[in-house]
């Protein structure tokens, strides 16, 4: 029975690359070493509702989606984008970098807005990086060196199930040969999460006070503990002192941060203050951070967008050159202003994850979906183009949460076109329409 080794899991930002996948008759029958999420994802096409055929609505939003050919769907998609005055391209975080590169080209030639799922999760970390930089390391460095691991506003037990065994608290490394015994684990979270239950120290702060806590830690680390009040972020000062002491006692500390930092009050200011805290701590020992990215290749989107356009997200090509002003040009900023008059999304589900007001607007404008699976976004899409699943049905590049690129494997054959092919064909069609004066 053919077993493919060292397969890359394309579910979360851990991008585990040690899976063992059994393929029989072009079907995946067994997925070894993955966590539950990874197994479900890798076997996904037999568990979820697959989009089987390209589909379009011929008579407006209220009409049914009708099956059509790839050619028809691609032509229709190109027509919509060419006719639009303020088109938007969104998503592209659960696909390959090769596809993302094409998505950039399509956005350029159609003068689109271009953004990723970071708009609703880790976008503020990029803003924090712009303010204060990103002191970081590779996950293997963390595994080998870190004796203090702080999960701040994230819950890896559920969201990144193998993170702790492969890279963090449980992993054995060069200077942490005994794994957990050589490491201290702290969780900072308003909730007593399943991750928190295993922590050496739980800092259960008042929701939305992350910035206050970071600022207090900085004060302590810089020798100003005396100015702090008795209660900080809803915690007794002694508790915060305990955390600061653990930081000072460690030789190599790492903060893994999640949306608890990026999407709570303070937003990117919290992230930028974390950077400052790490810089302060590095005066005596070493401290770094890594964002716990959800979608397996949202990091790749930021990388590709940065090298192709100069900016990691929230890009506006309506002027011909790339313009960037998150807060103005982020997907939900523009949707809520109701400026957008056509929408294309790939490998994402804005229908499920956007604020209601944005979704309402999406129901009013022509929308194109490129995806392997049907989801709430399909409900309002006028053109639905089925795609091969990257990392299962086609190969390509993905970037792990620490920025490490890994090549995804093709495991089985498919008749579906890849995201890259679909986008390439839409681009060609757009050029054709423009040359014929189609818009």
């Amino acid at each position: 029975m053919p077993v493919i080794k060292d397969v890359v899991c394309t579910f979360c930002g851990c991008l585990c690359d040690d899976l063992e996948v059994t393929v029989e008759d072009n079907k995946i029958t067994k997925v070894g070493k993955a966590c539950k999420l990874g197994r479900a994802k890798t076997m996904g096409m037999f568990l979820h509702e697959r989009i089987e055929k390209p589909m379009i609505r011929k008579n407006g939003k209220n009409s049914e989606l009708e099956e059509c050919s790839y050619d028809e769907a691609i032509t229709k998609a190109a027509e919509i984008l060419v006719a639009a005055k303020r088109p938007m391209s969104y998503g592209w975080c659960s696909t390959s970098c090769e596809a993302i590169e094409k998505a950039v080209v399509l956005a350029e030639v159609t003068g689109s807005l271009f953004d990723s799922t970071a708009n609703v999760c880790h976008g503020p970390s990029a803003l924090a990086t712009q303010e204060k930089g990103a002191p970081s390391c590779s996950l293997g460095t963390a595994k080998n060196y870190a004796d203090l691991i702080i999960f701040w506003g994230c819950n890896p037990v559920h969201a990144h199930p193998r993170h702790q065994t492969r890279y963090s608290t449980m992993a054995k490394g060069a200077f942490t040969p005994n794994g957990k015994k050589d490491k201290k684990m702290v969780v900072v979270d308003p909730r007593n999460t399943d991750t928190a239950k295993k922590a050496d120290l739980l800092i259960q702060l008042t929701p939305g006070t992350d910035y206050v806590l970071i600022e207090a830690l900085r004060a302590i680390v810089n020798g100003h503990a005396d100015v702090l009040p008795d209660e900080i972020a809803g915690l007794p000062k002694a508790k915060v002192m305990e955390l600061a002491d653990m930081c000072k006692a460690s030789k190599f500390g790492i903060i893994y941060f999640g949306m608890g930092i990026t999407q709570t009050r303070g937003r990117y200011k919290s992230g930028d203050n974390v950077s400052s805290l790490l810089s302060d701590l590095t005066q005596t020992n070493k401290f770094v951070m890594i964002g716990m990215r959800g979608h397996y290749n949202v990091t790749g989107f930021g990388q590709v967008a940065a090298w192709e356009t100069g900016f990691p997200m929230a890009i506006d090509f309506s002027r011909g050159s790339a313009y960037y002003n998150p807060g103005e040009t982020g997907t939900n900023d523009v949707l809520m202003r109701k400026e957008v008059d056509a929408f294309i999304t790939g490998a994402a589900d804005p229908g499920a994850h956007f604020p209601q007001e944005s979704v309402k607007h999406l129901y009013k404008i022509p929308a194109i979906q490129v995806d392997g699976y049907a989801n709430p976004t399909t409900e309002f899409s006028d053109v639905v183009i089925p795609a091969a699943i990257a990392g299962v049905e086609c190969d390509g590049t993905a970037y792990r949460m620490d920025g490490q690129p890994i090549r995804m494997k093709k495991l089985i054959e498919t008749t579906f076109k890849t995201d890259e092919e679909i986008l390439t064909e839409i681009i060609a069609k757009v050029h054709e329409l423009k040359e014929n004066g189609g818009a």
Partner: protein
Amino acid sequence: MAEIVIKNGVVYDPKNGVDGEKNEICIKDGKIVNNVGVGAKVIDAEGCLVLPGGVDGHTHCAGKINTARIMSPHDMRYSPIPGLSGPEPGTKLLRPQVGYNTPNTHAIGYRYSKLGYTTIAEAAITPMMARHMHEEFESIPILDKLALVLLGSNWQVMQYIQDGDSEMLKSYMAWALLASRGYGVKVVNPGGGSSWTWGKNVTGIDDKVIDFDVTPADILIGLAEANEALNLPHSIHVHCNNLGVPGNIPTTLDTMKLLEKVKASQDRQVMHLTHMQFHSYTGTSWMDFASGSDQIADYVNKHDHLTFDMGQMIFGPAMTMTADGPTEYRNARMFGAKWSNYDQELEDAGGIVPLSYTPQHFAHATMWSIGLELALLVKDPWKVMFTTDNPNGGAFVNYPEGQVLLMSDKKRQEVIAGFPDMTMDRISLPNIDRELDWGEMTVMTRSMPAKMLGLEEKGHLGAGADADVAIYDLKPDKVDVSVQHEAVKKALSFAKYTIKGGEVVVQDGDITALPKGKVYWVNAYENGIVQAEKDRLITDLEERFKKYYSMQFSNYMVEDAYVPRPVEIRPEVA
């Protein structure tokens, strides 16, 4: 491919002894040839300067620069040099462009081409991150590329040196180049990258590295000897310890002396020292810091085993990015600047910090002077490569500025006149009146980098060379660079023609075609290492991957898909 003949140009081709002669240059099938048929396309150079395409042997253009981009949206809008910086919309042919120090990939390709440069060497990539670099390489149009692979704080390297196992060291070096599709060996702050993971550093070549029983000197000698044993086209490429530290001159001289005992395997240096400007400081602090360029130049003038590049500073904003993690942390703390750091498991450190250089500050004015002093005090231009350590000392779009400074004493004196008085007793530049001629400038920007890297098809216009040619809109016999430096700078900034691989890619300063470049890499593994040694290495690496790496051994090596147009160089086995 069409044949081309360039007529009526004033040609400088130092490698072939051509010094400003009206030779015809014939091009066929992407190569320089001795003659072409009557139907060849004629380019009339009208008495203008004709040079081989520029070779940038040390630039940060792919990989780490991407984090720098994410850190600097302000840079994307900055445009001090119209036509070579800032936002520009896409056209039918071109992709949109942005940036100055950290432009997008497309802009890098277009702008180097406009300057008449056709080959660039990314100066610092770890093997593990090479896949990322190749993705960016593929996105940079027109130019040929190659990569220098960081091995100076690598655990395998340090372990094999500690074990005295020179065979394993050799095998690993060859394997690392294969795994990263890399060209040469880079050493940054030897040993310091490993110490930096603990937040520490090394302070000189005899300091002990944390966790390994080796010194920077052991690493330098070990890598240099392995490099020569493998007969690699390039020598080791070294960024010394103590970059940017006042009083670092003894460390730099120690490093140079240390390598005297290594024998080169071929007709080139045994070590290239990079961005020498940052390593030529006397004094004990920033208060008494001064230029030590005379000491460095004196040593280089008397010895033939090394070459260096300038690391010239350009005034204005810069973006520093280096595997020298502790230096970047120090910079960030000193200037309160934003700080990015990346410790790459088992391989090296890295940091990124934006800085700005101003002629109003004596320290920056002194550093600016040192770069020029070094290039002017060293007599033999074949020992000096022109660089700004793009974008550490300044953005590459300023190369014409730096080059004109080397050719015009008058221009230098104009700049020096604006320096604070505190600068004057720290520098010797005001008393150096040497002005490089076109032949010397061609050496430093073309012929020397090609020779230093061992790129035989680059940096010259003899038959068999790649047809990479730059024609500039200036007539060497009619223009006095010393006086007309601004006009010359403009001509060097926007080539009249750039020809890349026999195709016209720039005409009158505009991009006309977008061929894809090649990637040079060195395979010293396949034939250079015997099977028994390969087996021994792989067994050890498999063990190390299981224990220490975060990635599977089988997924580590850069796949062929990332290098679609490779030029594989196999060194002769000794």
